[in-house]
């Protein structure tokens, strides 16, 4: 059977990344070198620790190339896995954005309709405003992820997601005055 060359590619990429970190990223983005002399005292500079980290990466990459390029248990990553992973991450990003902005957006709409000048920042610890972002974003996140796995969108999923997120909000918010549900610490 033909071996996968996954380890060889991974090893090569890791090695290249390690070299980039050691010779480009660390020198350009660190103030002190490996060892520094300050007022006649020699101390370890900020560049040493990341250089050691990158050395671990280089050793790992080198080992993959030298010792494990013909290993039997090399993973075969399918494009399907990568695409599904991207879809999962995109769903979460979208839901977190809804979580972050739906509360302030609701207030803006409310202000437009009522002519008021309410600010989300001042209402972020007041029900029902403080729950809007978490409930909408959370429900969206669970619904999207479940639907991705199931391959279909169902009203039942939406209901289950809403109930789960409501319970979660109750667990984190009701008993504790000092806990802020997302996104209320930022806005």
């Amino acid at each position: 059977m033909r071996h996968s060359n996954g380890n060889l590619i991974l090893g090569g990429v890791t090695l290249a990344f390690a070299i980039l970190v050691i010779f480009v990223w660390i020198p350009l983005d660190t103030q002190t070198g490996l060892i520094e002399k300050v007022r006649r005292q020699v101390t370890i500079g900020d560049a040493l620790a990341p250089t050691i980290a990158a050395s671990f990466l280089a050793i790992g990459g080198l080992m993959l190339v030298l010792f494990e390029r013909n290993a039997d248990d090399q993973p075969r990553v399918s494009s399907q896995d990568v695409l599904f992973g991207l879809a999962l991450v995109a769903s979460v990003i979208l839901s977190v954005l809804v979580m972050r902005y739906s509360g302030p957006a609701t207030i803006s709409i409310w202000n437009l309709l009522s002519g008021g000048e309410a600010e989300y920042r001042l209402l972020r610890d007041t029900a029902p405003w403080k729950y809007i972002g978490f409930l909408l974003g959370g429900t969206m996140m669970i619904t999207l992820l479940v639907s991705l796995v199931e391959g279909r969108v169902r009203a039942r999923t939406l209901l289950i997601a809403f109930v789960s997120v409501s319970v979660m909000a109750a667990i984190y918010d009701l008993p504790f005055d000092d806990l802020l549900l997302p996104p209320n610490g930022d806005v």
Partner: protein
Amino acid sequence: MGTLDYIWLGILAVFQGPELFSIFGLPVSVTLVMILIGFLTGIAVGATPGLAGPIAMAIALPILISIFGYTPDALLPVMGFLIGVMKGATIGGAVPAILFNTPGTPDAYMTTLDGYPMTQKGQARKALRVAHFSSASGDTFSDIVLIICAPFLALLVEAYLDFPEKTALLILSLSFIGAVIGGSPAKGVLSTGLGLLAVYIGTGEDFYPRMSMGSDHLSQGFPIATSVLGVLIIGAVFKEMTDLWHQQRKSGTPPQFTDEGNQRLTRAEICRLLPFVGRSALIGTAIGALPGIGSTLAATLGYTVGRARHARTKSANVPDFGEGASEGIAATEAANSSVSGANLIPVLSLGIPGNAAAVFLILAAESIGGFNPGPSVFRFTQDVVNPELVIAFGLFTAMFIANALNWTIGGLFMRSMGVMVRIPKHILLPTVLLLTLTAIYVQETRIEAIWFALGFGALGYVMRLLAISPLPFVIAFILGGKLEESARQAFAATGGDAWFLFSSPISIGFIAASIGIILFSAGKKKHAA
């Protein structure tokens, strides 16, 4: 203050800590209640396929810290809960393995080999009793070894290791963890390197936060919760969901089997199981004491050794391993359960976490403050009380209370948890994801933390796709700061000697062992290819 005084203070700290309520005038401390809640939660979580102890710990930690605050009084209730979860999840994992041929936790896979055939033969409750007895025995044995070994190891480290040797020991631990976790030493070392690199971003001693690319967001580094929970939990959720998506979900209900015959464990049966339990407990404890080697390997070794003995000693009418032998369950469960206690030996004596549960204990200690797991904990000061040592003995007491719960109510509760397998995994996993993100947010209270966690989750997912174990990453992230600090101190203590790692025979030995273990593992892997 003698040793016995410290032990007594540790016991009192658990039993006479802040009172929650009283029964007939007897005060019940909050720590006792938290150990009980943690233990029951652990069994339920372990019995739910797709969940595991670390997930429950990750979600519970910010809630617990909010309840108990950032005071030393919070340490024992919070860590007692985590210890309860750790122990409960170990026995809970056997439930779906035996009843439904689905391991609740990865280390319970070998339990399915004999557990499910016993269920098919109408011996489900007996199989659960065997699993519980073996698991509780292995766990108790391992805790005794922990309590005896950890203080001695810590005292040895404090007596003989100075800064250069401690730095070399940290390098040895990281190399060892990288080389032995997962099937590939190269990928383990790579994972360790990634973890170290991540923890060094935005930190350092200079005015400019190193490697932050001028970004304010990176200037404070990555919060530990975002990296640990991201790589360990969110990455696992993404991978599990991908696997679920691939699976052709089976329709219909799982087959039902009716219990037949006596389901109790007789004294004669217990005596027959004891040699298997004993051997596996020794194997699991020895493996658990080495940081990074998981309970799955212990279970496999325990099962293999048990199978060899069973083949030699069994009578003709007794089933073989793999055909419903209760000895198979005993060998597996005793081995995987005895790992959990021994895994805390490197945590408490050296400050080096060896598994995911230990990572969360360190995370709790770091979040709350007042307790830094490591050799300095075991300073038996005579004139003033060392509060960290009292906490350490309090933790040992908590472990024995969890064991007592395991022996008394654990079996009963475990046998009622079969229902957890019915929870649909594809709904549970997104809920766990949102819970984890919420847990991170309430700790950090900034949306950046969610983006960081998501980024680390994506990294954890890719690592899993490429068969790179995420545990070396997490352990390296936790130990990275300590490694740098220790190296700076060693460098200063040796008067700026760049070769401080080779300044004593012990540190030379540690460094040689670090190189040796990596070369040996790499050579073995090449030979196997």
